[in-house]
């Protein structure tokens, strides 16, 4: 049972090799075999759900094998509430994408399917890695196939978009790698010569404040680019617009989640003190992203760019939930990751379907589609309302949890919570505005363009491709409990651990040398109280700094 994750990682690679070694020109066969591999991968991943122990916070399905023992690099994988659903989302979306590309990807279909399968391994690997080097390997492994997918099968400006995507991501990961190495070196020195890149072991290291800040921002640089957070989001509209439909679906559905997942899994727990100090600026950036993304989406004339900017807006909510570091916030962020993956994936698929028929994404070319494509309109409407956060559909649950969690428990992290949440909440309204406007411009009104009069409605294949996503959007909105109850224990444990380590960091903040967490735990019997006493419920972090400096000055004077 514990080898299940390994099987999940190896299976798509086998598929990719099989597909890539087929004779050239066998596109149909390649797609068929690739789809079979992807569907089987999904079936293999179902035992993850059935075997997942509800109510348990720690890692499950854990496996660890020494890989490079000289440096303590292990093949260490496991699954918990944060990663479970996103892994399942990955295994679900990959076959959907391959099947969805049945007619739209014509040239070099075999290579496309192989790239999708390699990408799947990369994504699952990044989600289940519990060793930082292993994580980094998969993190970079995702990059190459996505780069090829955008660059080979994209639209007119694809090469520039692909290179932009690659370089942006590499800059971030270069900084992250430096931080990873630094952390491992500190761990080596603290433990008297144990090399390890294992997350559980490196998590024991409590760095002094300055080093924490440097490392935290190095990690966040990498993750924020992937999310993408407001000032570094500029690669996303290009990448989305130029990518082929399946590329967009996977990019929005899973790849963006890697950024937020990385923040939950690595950046926040490894450097809690710096995370606490950075929470307010990050929350402000997230809120700017929410509002700015929505406003920019509103003025787009290109349907795909519109959805891309809506991603910027929605991902802002997820970041807000994470930096609030509250149980509801984390659960909501994870749930919203799923919701965004499904709804935005469905929106991109819809626009892909229009593009396939008309070869244009300009909104002005459409209008009155509802009359000729009723099936399509229904599917599109459900996805769109889910994305807009209509109660009863998937988007509402996540956004609501995030806002509530941030409002009630975000005070320890974020300064000026009510204001932040209030502005973020306007994002929900703006979301409804631009999405409904999109719907109106596409679907309603008279058919002004004669080319639209003979549009084909969805074929059976397309309806089947849509069906699981649409059903999930409704099901998860009506009955989110089975999803939430698997995420919640992990969130609770993460918050508890975060507060403990943050308290330990506060206790240790005066020291110049790093320390191990276990040596500081006894000084943190009630972590929340300690954090409150230093940060106050609503006090800016600068005050804490001033206190520290005063204390240091007093100590220096008394000596």
């Amino acid at each position, binding site marked *: 049972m514990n080898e299940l994750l390994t099987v999940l990682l190896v299976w798509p690679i086998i598929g990719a090799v099989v597909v890539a070694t087929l004779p*050239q020109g066998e596109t149909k066969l390649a797609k068929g075999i690739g789809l079979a591999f992807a569907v089987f991968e999904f079936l293999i991943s179902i035992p993850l759900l059935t075997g997942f122990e509800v109510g348990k916070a*720690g*890692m499950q399905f*854990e496996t*660890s094998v*020494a*890989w*490079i*023992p*000289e*440096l*303590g690099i*292990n093949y*260490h994988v496991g699954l918990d509430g944060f990663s479970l659903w996103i892994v399942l989302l990955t295994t679900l979306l990959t076959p959907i994408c391959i099947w969805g590309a049945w007619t739209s990807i014509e040239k*070099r279909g075999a290579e496309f399917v192989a790239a999708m399968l390699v990408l799947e391994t990369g994504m699952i690997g990044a989600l289940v890695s519990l060793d930082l*080097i292993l994580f*980094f*390997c*998969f993190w*970079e*492994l995702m*990059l*190459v196939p996505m*780069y*090829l997918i955008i*660059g*080979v099968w994209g639209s007119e400006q*694809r*090469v520039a978009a*692909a*290179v932009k995507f*690659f*370089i942006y991501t*590499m*800059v971030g990961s*270069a*900084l992250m*790698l*430096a931080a990873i*190495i*630094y952390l*491992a*070196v500190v761990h*080596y020195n603290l433990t008297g010569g*144990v*090399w*390890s890149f*294992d997350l*559980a*072991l490196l998590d*024991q290291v409590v760095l002094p404040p300055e080093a924490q800040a440097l490392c935290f921002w190095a990690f966040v640089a990498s993750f924020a680019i992937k999310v993408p957070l407001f000032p570094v989001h500029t690669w996303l509209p290009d990448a989305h617009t130029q990518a082929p439909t399946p590329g967009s679906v996977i990019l929005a559905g899973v790849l963006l989640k890697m950024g937020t997942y990385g923040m939950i899994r690595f950046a926040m727990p490894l450097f809690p003190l710096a995370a606490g100090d950075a929470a307010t600026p990050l929350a402000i950036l997230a809120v700017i992203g929410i509002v700015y993304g929505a406003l920019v989406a509103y003025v787009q004339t290109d349907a795909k760019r519109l959805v891309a900017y809506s991603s910027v807006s929605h991902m802002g909510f997820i970041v807000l939930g994470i930096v609030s570091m509250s149980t509801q916030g984390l659960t909501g962020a994870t749930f919203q990751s799923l919701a965004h993956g499904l709804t935005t994936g469905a929106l991109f698929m819809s626009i892909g379907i229009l593009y396939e028929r008309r070869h244009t994404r300009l909104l002005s070319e459409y209008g009155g589609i509802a009359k000729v494509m009723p099936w399509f309109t229904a599917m599109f409407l459900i996805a769109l309302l889910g994305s807009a956060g209509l109660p009863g559909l998937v988007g509402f649950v996540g956004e609501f949890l995030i806002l509530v969690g941030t409002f009630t428990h975000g005070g320890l992290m974020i300064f000026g919570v009510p204001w932040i949440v209030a502005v973020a909440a306007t994002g929900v309204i703006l979301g409804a505005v631009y999405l409904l406007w999109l719907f109106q411009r596409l679907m309603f009104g008279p058919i002004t363009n004669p080319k639209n009069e003979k549009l084909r409605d969805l074929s059976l294949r397309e309806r089947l491709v849509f069906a699981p996503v649409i059903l999930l959007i409704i099901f998860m909105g009506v009955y989110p409990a089975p999803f939430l109850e698997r995420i919640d224990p992990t969130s609770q444990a993460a918050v508890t651990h975060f507060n403990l380590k943050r308290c330990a960091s506060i206790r240790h903040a005066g020291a110049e040398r790093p320390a191990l967490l276990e040596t500081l735990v006894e000084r943190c019997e009630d972590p929340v109280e300690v954090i409150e006493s230093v940060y106050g419920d609503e006090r800016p972090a600068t005050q804490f700094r001033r206190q520290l400096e005063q204390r240091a000055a007093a100590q220096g004077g008394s000596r």
Partner: protein
Amino acid sequence: MIGLFTGLVGISPGAGVLDDILHLGPMMIVAAWALLTLVTDAFAGPGRRVFQRRVALVGLGLATVVAAAQFGSWEYDGSLLVFGKFLQVDHFALLLDIAILLTAAAVITFAGDFARSHRFEYGEHETLVLIAAFGMMTLVHAADLVAIFLGLETMSIAVYVLVGARWNSRASSEAALKYFIMGAFSSGMLLMGIALLYGATGVTALSELAPQIARIFHGWMAAQPYVDLVMSPEGAPLDAIRDASDRAVTGIAPAALFFPGVIFILGALLFKVSAVPFHMWTPDAYEGAPTPTTGFMAAGVKIAGFAVLLKLFVAVFNTPRLVTAPYGWTSVVSIIAFATMTIGNLAAVRQTNVKRLLAYSSVAHVGYLLVGVVAAASFYGQGHYTGQARPADQLMWSRVTGDMAVASILFYLLVYAVATLGAFACVAWFGANKKEGVAAHEWSGVGLRHPGMALGLTICLLALMGMPPTAGFFGKLFVFRAAFENDNWLLRALVVTALLNSVIGAYYYLRLIVAMYFRPQPARQIETLPGRGAPLVVGAAAVLSLAMAVFASPVMKRCQLAAAGFAYAPGEAKADWVDSVRARWEAEEAAGNEPEADAASAERGS
């Protein structure tokens, strides 16, 4: 030195000469085969390209087998000195022997096809490659400054000829002339440096050099009061001043010879590995040379150059004064490393010629490697007795970390050699009949037309880029980790610069991949080299680039064995150290494959 000549002509009374020759088996085989190929060329006849290649490959294969058999043998744990103290046989030399032999074999595999297709076939090619390989092996085995000079010259002269061998190309002649003039100049610098060092210390054997350095510093410090007296002689009697000036001169003179000597040698070696600002010849020579030779230079010459840099600067010139400011060479080399990687990468961005692009990228890689060299020397520099008491574990720590840093550099060198050979083999393969496809735009659509070769080149480029899951990533990880482990913010900043530099690297490597996969095929297509040689090399390089990542552990273990006790002079102490390292490994293996950290994490998890 004398041992070599007397030994070879059989005058030496000792029976050790035959043993020495046997210990140097790989080198001797290569030397013998270099002469053999010269003779067989006469009998080769019209099919001589294939025949000569086979003969040379048999020799290289034989030498590789012998080197592989010797590698890891307990006999060489303490660095066996042979031919007096002229050469030494140890794991370090043997590992690099294998790398050099395989490099030469790879080059010979496709160089013949290349020469024939571009109409400059000549019989001596294999001989020259073998002679150059012999020179490189002399360098990695060198235990004496004179051996270093001889090895460098043997290698360089053969390579000059190889660069200029394409007689029907003006660029080739120009490249050879440029490389020769610059190379001769740097050889002169090396010789000057060696002479100064000999003047300062009176020895040329590396093992005897280290104690002499301490003596020089001691003499210098002892002369300081006399210097002060001479500089401000107010009121002192004339005799005392005269005496003081004599003592000051005799005290300072060795140091005054020694430092310029070190600088000359450093300059010469940096020239050979083409570090900025000694890199000017690199793009021209790499571009003009026949592509197989370019690959040979980028892989083989750099391995040999770094071997000497490590042997001399990391293992010998590592006393605290020599590695720390104000007299330390590491601060200079840090700046050079920074300039090398930055200028190399930035210049590569602007190249439209694939060979020049790869040439500048090889310059950039030298920058990364120099970061590792500085790190290794800094570790060893902290492990010296400097007057004040040092805890024994710090000495131990400096040796352990220093060895690890050297092992990381070796790993990086191996990966770099594999990937760069693969890349140049692919460039050589793309073009035939005096028409080379070296302009980047000519690579448009290659991914569709030749998917196998394009995939191979892509993997090699990803390895050079340092992308996981290729071995290039682990090379970078190991070297940069070593640099990070130094508690030195300058070095850490250098690592961050290097990591950001690798993003620039990614940009221009991507340009080739973009051309191959994203651009449509041009109407006029470049022919490709006939023969299976180049595809074989590219395939092997691609497979190795991936395999060395998956099996990074066994490769790293061998590098660690090669680097164990690297700062020790040959002898008992080194053998003891290596034996203790081996004993530790055996204990670890006996304790089960589960590493310590793993068990601990399992404990915490439960």
